[in-house]
């Protein structure tokens, strides 16, 4: 018995071993085939990865210009190494400090106004959802998103034809005898932050609402139905059903805009800038352009751009951490 079992056991073992070996062989073959396939797949995307590397990663090397007094004519080898001189310069001279302070103030003010008005698309979507006439809804949606699809140059052109001193608005106001001298909407340093925010709203309101409208259409109608059964009025369903359902989307967008605090972009401010409003319209991105491309202070511009990028990434991770804590999921 004992012998028999041991014999059967060894036979079984042998058989098992053999099949196991066979399986292992097969697995190895499969793995190799898969490995070949997975590398071949990777090779397919390499050209695109090269593009990403060239345009996004390779330029990071250029941060080194911030440590030199870079003169394009001399190249990096011929330029003088100055260490942290540009960073010191940023905070050493009072005039430079004042200018940077003003630029930062503009950047933050315009960003915060943008964040403060970010509830408008939300409200727009909620109230548009209460409009029950389909053609009117569609017309509103189409026509209010139109400004999003034109360039800032064209926005400026529109601003110019409506608000310049010989523009429509001043003409109409003068016709009604409300003003005697044209109001300088564009060529003045007053209220620039507010007018810039208003133009952003004009351009982005309808577009910003689309994502909320999409989210609203995803809300289970039963929720509204049951709320109405319980006797909720129109405003109550808007406040207790629609709004809470949109909050996750709103919070994600809000956090992202916090991460973008320093990135206003430059196109809008570039087209609207002139000798009169330069003081309060220069945001960081525009300032970097102005001193780098036209002022020819390449190294200084690099240094500022570098600080800006670093702060932005830190902000992003902070915000991401908050999102993880609060919502249990990260946004990046």
């Amino acid at each position: 018995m004992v012998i028999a079992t041991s014999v059967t056991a060894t036979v079984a073992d042998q058989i098992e071993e053999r099949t196991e070996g066979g399986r292992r062989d097969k697995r190895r073959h499969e793995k190799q085939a898969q490995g070949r396939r997975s590398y071949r797949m990777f090779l397919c995307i390499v050209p695109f990865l090269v593009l990403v590397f060239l345009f996004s990663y390779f330029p990071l090397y250029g941060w080194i210009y911030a440590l030199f007094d870079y003169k394009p004519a001399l190249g990096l080898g011929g330029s003088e190494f100055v260490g942290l001189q540009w960073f010191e310069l940023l905070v050493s001279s009072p005039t430079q400090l004042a200018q940077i302070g003003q630029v930062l103030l503009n950047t933050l003010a315009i960003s915060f106004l943008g964040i403060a008005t970010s509830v408008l698309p939300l409200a727009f979507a909620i109230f548009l959802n209460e409009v029950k006439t389909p053609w009117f809804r569609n017309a509103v949606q189409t026509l209010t998103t139109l400004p999003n699809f034109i360039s800032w140059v064209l926005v400026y052109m529109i601003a110019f034809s409506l608000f310049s001193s010989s523009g429509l608005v001043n003409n109409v106001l003068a016709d009604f005898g409300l003003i005697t001298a044209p109001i300088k909407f564009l060529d003045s340093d007053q209220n620039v932050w507010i007018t810039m925010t208003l133009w952003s709203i004009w351009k982005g309101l309808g577009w910003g609402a689309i994502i909320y409208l999409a989210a609203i259409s995803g809300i289970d109608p039963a929720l509204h139905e049951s709320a109405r059964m319980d006797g909720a009025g129109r405003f109550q369903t808007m406040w207790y059903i629609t709004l809470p359902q949109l909050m996750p989307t709103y919070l994600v967008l809000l956090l992202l805009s916090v991460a973008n605090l320093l990135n206003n972009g430059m196109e809008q401010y570039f087209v609207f800038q002139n000798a009169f409003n330069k003081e309060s319209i220069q945001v960081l991105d525009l300032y970097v352009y102005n001193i780098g491309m036209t002022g020819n202070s390449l190294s200084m511009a690099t240094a500022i751009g570098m600080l800006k990028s670093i702060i932005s990434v830190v902000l992003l991770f902070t915000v991401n951490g908050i999102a993880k804590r609060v919502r249990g999921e990260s946004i990046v």
Partner: protein
Amino acid sequence: MTAISTSRPPLHTPRPPKPAPRPVRKTERSPGDYAFAIVNYTVFTLLVVICAYPFYFLVINSVSANDVSALGDVRLWPIGFQLENYRQVFELNGLGTAAVVSVARTVIGTVATVLASAFLGFMFTQSRMWARQFWYRFVIVTMYFSAGLIPVFIVMKNLGLTNNFWVYVLPFMVQPFYIILVKTYVESMPESLQEAAELDGANIVQIFFRVYLPNMTPILATVAIFSAVAQWNSFQDTLIYITDQSLYTLQYLLYMFINQASSLAQAAQNAGGDLGAIVGAATSQTPTSIRMTVSVVVVLPIIFIYPLFQRFFVKGIMLGAVKG
């Protein structure tokens, strides 16, 4: 549902009574509801007017008599209708070239971006690809940092992309945001599509082009319209990388027309010769009329194309953004 309708019920069992038609709930409206509706509709009408009137204003001014429009008297409808402005604007020096460049970058750039986004979006769903997660992140994180204007400019310059048409296309090809949109979409498609094609012996590129690409049209339309609008409207890249006039875009030309009275006058003088002669006559072009007409030329393609595509990208946004 279908199974029930095909099999006849046995004769002896009485048919279930038809469900009573769902009562059309007459929602009773309180005076408060009417007030709300009136306010709501009024506010939205106002918003529409604020958004749409500026475009209308440009159009009616560009087709009105130039002396009237220069005074700002054209407000609700055209006065002294003419199309002369358009004829003359098309003869402006550089406008033809700029239009060709704008159209070319929009078409080539959009096709390149759409193909790259579709391919990468698809490839990043392939769990077998070597180090997929890593390369996906490698691409996606570029959304969140930038080396800054000057270093990028110097790299472009060293790559020979300044004063080069391809600067309009290459840097825009790989767009993380579009890749996320496509990837989310592909993940919602059944995996059996790919398995079936693999059994037939198709390789990954064939699977992409023959099986997936034709089935991705909604999301590709979304990416296409985004990218086309971005290409058509882009202005910053011309400003930074281009000094060669033959590569100017319409947007850049418009910017120059708005900002530089001298270049405007020069453009008018260079155009065809007869334009300068009729300056001062009743139909002559004023800086205002040139600006407005060029603006209309720049915005018209978008106004025509945009409503056609609107339903696509609303859907696309819903697919990509809300879920992801």
